[in-house]
């Protein structure tokens, strides 16, 4: 499962993924992060639609049975959507971390793709997993 690194997404070294869609960027955590966490029991997204978020800043926490991890924004911008469903169904992240387990949507003034240029592509992220995780 941890080698599930879809092409077309961008990644951070902290195991968030980001997907550009026009002026918006959808954010979640990677299959590798999910596998490391195990069964996710609690997601606290500490931002609301309308909040501005700086790149690299924490936007919430995710907890599994054993551990708590911080969530960091891969890009800065204005939060336009928060996945409220995760509040009652944190298991969506275990089931579908690149789909129904999305966390926030951030609006980026200059468009999604340029803002994500600095992040890792799927090949670089897969390489990062190989060199750092084992």
């Amino acid at each position: 499962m941890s080698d599930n690194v879809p092409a077309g997404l961008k990644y951070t070294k902290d195991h968030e993924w980001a997907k550009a869609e026009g002026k918006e960027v959808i954010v979640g955590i990677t299959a590798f992060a999910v596998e490391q966490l195990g069964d996710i029991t609690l997601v606290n997204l500490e931002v609301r639609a309308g909040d501005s978020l700086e790149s690299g800043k924490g936007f919430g926490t995710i907890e599994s049975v054993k551990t708590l991890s911080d969530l960091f924004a891969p890009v800065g911008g204005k939060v336009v959507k928060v996945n409220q469903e995760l509040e009652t169904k944190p298991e969506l992240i275990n089931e579908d971390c690149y789909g129904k387990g999305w966390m926030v949507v951030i609006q980026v003034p200059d468009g999604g793709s340029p803002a994500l240029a600095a992040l890792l592509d799927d090949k670089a992220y897969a390489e990062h997993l190989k060199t750092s995780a084992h």
Partner: protein
Amino acid sequence: MTTEPPLRRTSLYDCHVRAGARIVPFAGWEMPVQYEGIVPEHRAVRTAAGLFDVSHMGELELRGQYAGQVVNYLITNDAGKLSDGQALYTCACNEAGVILDDLIVYRCSSERYLIVCNASNVTKMAAVFEKAAEHHCDFDNRSDRTALIALQGPKAFDILALAGSGAANLRALKSFHFRDAVVANVACTVARTGYTGEDGVEIFCPWDDAPALWTALTSLGQPLGIAPIGLGARDTLRLEARLSLYGNDIDETTNPIEAGLGWVVKMDKGDFVGRAALEAVKGKPLPRKLVGFEVTGRGIARHGYPLLDLAGKPVGVCTSGSPGPTVGKNIGLGYLPASMAEVGTRFQVDCRGKGIDAIVVKTPFYRRQA
């Protein structure tokens, strides 16, 4: 700069890796923290059976005419009441009455006692027992030669029944009793003890025989739903059963009385290390108590999180906390002022700056159906 000693591996290390375990450092050992996942492993133990490698724990043996007296002087419970083949849970305290370790003491005979101590305390407890044994009885730290496998869960004895005629008779073993038995062609000592809140056994065998035993129990237990269990689920299982974890709930800053372990302190057995200090503790109202609680707000209490009164003042500390997979709630243990230790008392857990509602509840959180 400090140099960490290299991590050690139990004889079952290769079995764990083959079973897909995630390995983590624990008390100087490379141990499996999980295989399939904490929640499915937890459920396997509650509904079928789980196999645990606890070979990292320490085994200390005292032999000789005075072995019983030496042991009984070092522990708070009364080993003088044990018969051959019987074991007990106890604390060992220092003169200040705080807990050096929690142990199981096995009386093999009137002149031979086995002590099982926590992996993190082997060096400390070996020194304590060796020093006390000096000039009185023989001391042998058997930890490096002794493997320990726990088989726990409602199907544990059904699985043993498949492991040969000697093992099949183990169902007759009473709780906290033990005897020698051949299990799957391996000569073992089997005790009806555990750390999960389920029925089951803990099996001692020679270090190098453990892989054969582990492999045999795994394949015999397959049709009955046996699963290998890592340290992660071991922790959630013991927490639901409110079994203390040394280093979390009890340590050298806590005494057995406030930790809810007064039942293993026997003042009527004669002198023992820590007796005077514990008598003084018992003579006064307790300042604080270890309580079980449920987090009713959105949060998970973790070891070290402050506990707050309803005015937001820090009044205690969480010592263990996690979701309880069987009880279906976020649960924890922590020290609170005695005035707040009553079941039903509301307080808050400081979850990284956020006050999350919690309530003191009766423990154990989980009790198996008889």
